[in-house]
């Protein structure tokens, strides 16, 4: 019994760290930039596909993983350009990118999937260095923790710099930011690029962890990221940059934990989407009910 609990917890911890990258990406676009970016489903797969293809073609897994960040950045940049230069609504720009990237991902992989069986992945490299057996959960957690920690420290620093502050302000009051001399279009591009770079990185890690990249691996990633952000906000009610970032990761952990438990309890994988939807509704209802109980005024819902 304890064994099972330990397994479930450590596996969810690993997944929470990896999908925490997606959650941070969604947090950056949706919350920081107020830009509902649906590119995520496509850029996640793009990251996984790119890294898998590079590894199969003999590239060292570390640069192959970094390449996933690069392609994710580019995908986000295009979404941002569609929005700022062609003035497409953010939602439409993201949907078009998601659809377009599906075909691109098929081209990148030259098929529906790429197997990494018998390939040396970043996990194997780290296992070698640590002298641990391949496929051990300790290795998975070490890799995921290292990546998440680096991302956390860089973002926590960057978002407090002069450029980072202007980025955050853009999502809060774009008109004000422009009237203070900042090119807000550039900030939208930068935010979308960083977010999708992180999402691409998550795809690359997951592909190596599961041993394959698949054209369908990114489906529902945006909803999962959204669920993580919202659960994190409902549970931890974070204030301040560092806590907001940690809440996204914490939300991803809780989300994966719920899902893993649901599966263990014998729910069919097909039911997971419904569970996700219900979780998001519950997480959104918590602050609503809390305010209702305190008789606070609640603004009407936004409708973008």
């Amino acid at each position, binding site marked *: 019994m304890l064994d099972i609990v330990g397994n479930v917890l450590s596996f969810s911890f690993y997944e929470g760290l990896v999908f925490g990258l997606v959650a941070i990406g969604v947090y950056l676009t949706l919350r920081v930039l107020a830009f509902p970016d649906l590119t995520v489903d496509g850029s996640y797969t793009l990251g996984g596909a790119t890294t898998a293809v590079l590894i199969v073609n003999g590239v060292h897994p570390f640069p192959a993983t970094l390449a996933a960040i690069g392609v994710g950045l580019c995908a986000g940049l295009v979404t941002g350009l569609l929005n700022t230069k062609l003035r497409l609504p953010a939602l439409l720009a993201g949907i078009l990118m998601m659809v377009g990237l599906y075909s691109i991902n098929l081209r990148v992989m030259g098929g529906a999937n790429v197997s990494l069986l018998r390939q040396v992945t970043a996990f194997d490299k780290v296992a070698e260095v640590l002298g641990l057996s391949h496929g051990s959960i300790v290795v998975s957690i070490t890799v995921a923790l290292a990546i998440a920690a680096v991302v956390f420290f860089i973002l926590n620093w960057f978002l407090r710099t*002069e450029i980072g*502050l202007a980025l955050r302000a853009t999502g*809060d009051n774009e008109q004000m930011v422009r*009237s*203070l001399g900042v090119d807000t279009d550039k900030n939208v591009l930068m935010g979308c690029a960083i977010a999708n770079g992180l999402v691409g990185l998550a795809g690359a890690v997951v592909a190596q962890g599961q041993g394959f990249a698949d054209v369908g691996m990114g489906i529902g990633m945006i909803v999962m990221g959204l669920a993580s952000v919202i659960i994190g906000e409902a549970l931890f009610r974070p204030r301040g940059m560092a806590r907001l970032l940690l809440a996204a990761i914490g939300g991803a952990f809780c989300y994966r934990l719920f899902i893993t438990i649901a599966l263990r309890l014998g729910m069919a994988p097909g039911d997971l989407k419904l569970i996700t939807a219900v979780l998001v509704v519950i997480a959104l209802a918590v602050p609503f009910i809390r305010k209702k109980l305190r008789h606070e005024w609640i603004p009407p819902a936004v409708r973008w």
Partner: protein
Amino acid sequence: MSQNKSLLQLRGIAKIFSKGTIDEVTALDNIKLDVNAEDYITIIGSNGAGKTTLLNVIGGVFPPERGGKVIISGNDITGFSEYKHATYVGRVYQDPHIGTAAKMTVEENLAMAVLRGQPRGLRPATNKQRRELFRSALAPLSLGLEDRLNAQVGTLSSGQRQAVALVMATISKPALLLLDEHTANLDPRTAQLVLDLTEVIVQREKMTTIMVTHNMELALRYGNRLIMMHEGKIVVDLNQKQRAGLTIDDLIAAFEQASGRRFIEDNILLRR
């Protein structure tokens, strides 16, 4: 007024909205204006006279129609994006929500403002020295905001927010300050406080200022030059000497003479 002293030169400024449709409006009609350094101009005019549109052209929200020119401190910035105009122009809007970012703290808002016209880099956005600067800029407001640097701006009252917006517009000492009915939405006491603070900052920094107001009394009390707008044109332009000793009734008479219209008090916002 000698040409070369002008801080702001507007030449042939026109603005037509919804061109070619039945809704076509000529909001600005061939405006020529020279603003000298350290001028403090008050602008009055009926609702829809084009006052806000004029400030929007100066602030670069949209360019004037072809042929118009906006020159600030000798630089022709016609058609430049709004964020480039911001190097020279600080603005306070009628609505305090436009001038401040609600979800950010007072300190973060000011940290955004203090870098107007400077390149932003990877230095921390706030530091001890800047915090001191913010405190000393907020202290004269006597609103206690200097001790609330970490308060979210959204939790402040409208008056406090507008005071912060005013400090934000001026803290980097832009060449030109534009105020668009910036006290119209405030209760009388806070409005007076913000007006007093405006006066203090404008005098202390010798800031060139254009203040739009719908209150004739304010227009006469503040500034050294008074402009009246009507249907997109400047119809009255009084310098300090011409303005001295004028009453509100004199202004109404001047308006009626220049515009060829009776002054109707209700449906125009030129309140006494």
